[in-house]
């Protein structure tokens, strides 16, 4: 049986020579967690199933630093590596793959130019193309949007860009379905209401998107403890859960999370 995946996410500030992993709440209160490939090796030892490197600086000059990070990581970490943040073109994707990435995740560029998804999946395969969707709850009714019942009332989910600094009016569920049709192989779904809050995953969002597509969905945003990860696997049919700060600052190791999940009946790789 396929195991549920636990994916540490490394938010990388590439403004320093070897990059550094950072975590903050909406880019405030930033804390430094370490050197990307050193953390990657540590997570490999702990039994992480996959790693995601997000370039939070996302500027072209720093693409070279990301390549260095991935090259260095792939020398001795043998698990799937995803690169995201500022991938704008097929060329950016190719640079990431040449450095050793297995997948690229795209958000803003795909919303602005949806054909990019078709191109990436055509040239590098569906499995290499991750669509990142950053979704925010909207409680006002709007025709044409998928309304979802939540304990807080009926809402729809709006896609945002640039890490939540710009909104699009696009319905996240409809966009997820379109992204699948265009060749995305994985959806990295982040709740902008929960991201950085440690209040737990947005179960209604995760469930609604995961039930609307046939490709794997990675739940992201809001993970603050072990129970949150268990909850998202028990209440939704997502394939994977992503977390950052609970791992970076040593609150839990990946193996602790997995042992807890296994004890509670979730099928994981140990």
């Amino acid at each position, binding site marked *: *049986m*396929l*195991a*549920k*995946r636990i994916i540490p996410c490394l938010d990388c500030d590439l403004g320093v020579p070897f990059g550094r992993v950072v975590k903050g709440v909406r880019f405030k209160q930033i804390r430094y967690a370490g050197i990307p490939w050193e953390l990657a090796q540590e997570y*490999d030892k702990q039994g992480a*199933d996959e790693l995601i490197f997000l370039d939070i600086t996302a500027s072209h000059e720093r693409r070279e630093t990301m390549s260095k990070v991935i*090259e260095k990581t*792939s*020398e*001795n970490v*043998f*698990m*799937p590596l995803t690169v995201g943040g500022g991938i704008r073109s097929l060329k950016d994707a190719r640079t990431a*793959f*040449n*450095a*050793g*990435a*297995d997948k690229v995740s795209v958000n803003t560029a795909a919303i602005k130019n949806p054909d990019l998804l078709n191109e990436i999946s055509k040239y*590098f*395969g*569906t*499995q*290499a193309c991750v669509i990142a969707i950053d979704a925010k709850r909207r409680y006002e009714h709007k025709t044409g949007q998928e309304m979802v019942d939540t304990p807080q009332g009926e809402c729809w989910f709006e896609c945002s860009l640039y890490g939540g600094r710009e909104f699009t009016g696009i319905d996240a569920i409809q966009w997820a379905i379109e992204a699948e049709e265009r060749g995305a*192989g*994985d959806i990295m779904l982040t709740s902008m209401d929960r991201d950085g809050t440690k209040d737990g995953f947005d179960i209604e969002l995760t469930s609604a998107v995961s039930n609307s597509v*046939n*490709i*794997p969905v990675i739940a992201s945003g809001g993970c603050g403890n072990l129970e949150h990860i268990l909850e998202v696997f028990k209440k939704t049919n997502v*394939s*994977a859960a992503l977390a950052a700060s609970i791992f970076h600052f040593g609150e839990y190791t990946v193996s602790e999370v997995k042992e807890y999940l296994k004890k509670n009946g979730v099928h994981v*790789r140990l």
Partner: protein
Amino acid sequence: MIAIIDYGMGNLRSIYNALMNVNGDPVIVSDSAKLSGADAVVIPGVGSFGDGMNNLRPFEDELFDLIHDGIPMLGICIGMHVLFDWGEESNCEGFGLITGDVIRLPQGVRIPQMGWNELRIRCDSDLLSGINDGDFFYFVHSYYCVPENKHTITATTDYGVDLAAVVEKDNIHAVQFHPEKSSTKGLIILKNFVEMTRC
């Protein structure tokens, strides 16, 4: 020298690094003439069946010569698929080195299968030495191989169907998962493969 065939399909760095890690001597080969003299051949794989076959055709003669000489060969994912007779994905003929077809995963499961799944070992093989029943490997695929001779299947995995995860026929070894992405267990498989080249 272990030749990794570069047929223009994605990331060869990880398989190269993984073989280096287990003391292999990999060389990435993009020119079929350079295949001769190889002690072993790896056909890595990402992408689609049709594109893979198109790009591999130029290597066909040299590849068949090596296989007939008994050189160990490892096909990974698409590199496994192309060894079969026919692929549903591109409605395209493969090399036909193993009799059987490559068909789409069944309805009712998420496609692609993406993630770590358990190996069910059917019979011992040198490639699987040190691997236990239930060990996890990393799979990414939408199609799977159905060999006509079930005895060539040395391990399976369960994903909506009990599918062939490892197929072995004489010196031809083929794995549906990615050993180069399967952490320490994957490295054991690659180490076993490297050791075959030294027999």
